[in-house]
């Protein structure tokens, strides 16, 4: 079970995103919190701190 998303926490997240939502939109967004949390759970695997993300970059001849 994902942690409960309180109305206060939702308001904070919406404000941080700079969005102005109606009460209906807030309820709509809150209704998919569990599905988003499940997605966030699925991308976390035991991989350790040394595993780099995929879009690190390397310099090529064109950079020189």
């Amino acid at each position, binding site marked *: 079970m994902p942690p409960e998303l309180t109305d206060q926490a939702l308001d904070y997240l919406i404000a941080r995103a700079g969005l102005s939502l109606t009460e209906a939109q807030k309820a*709509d967004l809150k209704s998919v919190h569990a599905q988003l949390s499940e997605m966030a759970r699925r991308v976390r695997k035991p991989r350790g701190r040394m595993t780099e993300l995929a879009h690190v970059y390397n310099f090529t001849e064109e950079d020189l």
Partner: protein
Amino acid sequence: MAAAIPTIAAAARLIAKKELSPVELTRACLDRIHQLDPRLHAFIHVTEERALAEARAAEAAIMAGGPKGPLHGIPIGLKDIVDTKGIPTTCQSRLLADNIPDQDAACAARLNGAGTILLGKTTTHEFADGGPSFDLPWPPARNPWNTEHFTAGSSSGTGAAVAAGLILGGIGTDTGGSIRGPAAFCGIAGIKPTYGLVSRAGVAPAAFSLDHIGPMAWTAEDCALLLQALAGHDPRDPASANRPVPDYTAELERGIKGSRIGVIHHFHEVDYPVSPATRRGIDNAIATLRGLGAEIRDVQLAPLQDWGACGSLISIVERAAAYEEWARTRLGEFSERVQRRLMLGALVSGVDYVQAVRRRRELRAELQAAMADLDVVLTATQPNEAPRIDTVPVWDTFAAPSFMMPFNVSGYPAISLCSGFGEGGLPVAIQLVGKPFQEPTLLRVAHSFEKATEFRHRRPPLLT
């Protein structure tokens, strides 16, 4: 009417022999647009006068010196998120209702350079996202096989227009299945090329690291002809691959005897079981490919839901970043569906995004290992026939895992092909996936499958 619709390859042969006039071909497509598009809504903007002028110029050039290539004089359409110089490019959005770009997108310029005839801008989901919206100035496209049904999206207009013969081919874009999904529901061929093969310059973004541009047409062979014009390095696109472009049609007739084809059975049998008709199409396709001499093997990957979670989180965040300014200041001007998509960005953290990106590397490595001894893999494109357009869920991101997203996450090339018809008479499809930049092999397998089946002989009933 259906018998009069040639493939691009067939039209090109006739044009080269001066047995088919580009002007007459263009007029025939325009006639079908006039007759059918009031029901299909495949076009936002038809460029009739320009198209006829281009067709007359093409015809004169061909009569004088022959065609400059197989696309010379071929009528096409461009999804309306592709910038076109001097032609409205709305992204199906109120926010860009009056937008007229001052230059062509790279893909538009390349097709123009190849001599195609642009018939107009095709319907999309708003900014290539969100699903069929009924609260925009333009209605969503309808499926030519049954106009009460969905085309899928977001390259909905191109899919419908090709299936109905309004154009012979066109451009779609694909962030999580937006070429292959409409290709499947509309019964045509659509290829999402390898990430970086076709420049995204001048095309509205959906999610930068998942966005692909590619062709949609009646056959895989036609997709190969279009891809030939589209592929190539473009320094304006930071993801553009700088590598030689092969001949995509050279190997089409070589057959697939000895080819090694993996089937990701668990995607469509366990992770998200598909409809009986879709399953029948897949099983028959496997039998057909085996009959052509291919060796069939089973492939195991991470569950479909893992790929979907990875792609969806990346997509949500990259979209929210791309459209952040408008989401903050003009959210109410978007369709309700896109407002919902943009809101999602508020609930995904930066750490969620980075973990998704790390997961992406793991998933791609998994696919790379699984395909080490294979030429292509096969699974479903869509789980079923097209549903009614009024039943598409508003939160379709969460409704069902996508069979297509794994290949946006990995960047591997993938093509959707018609593999039969369901109980409702609408098409079902298979998806074939190749290795990076191995489109010649992928297209060869696709072409061999199409030649061995009869699905390319059947057009939507509204054409008969």
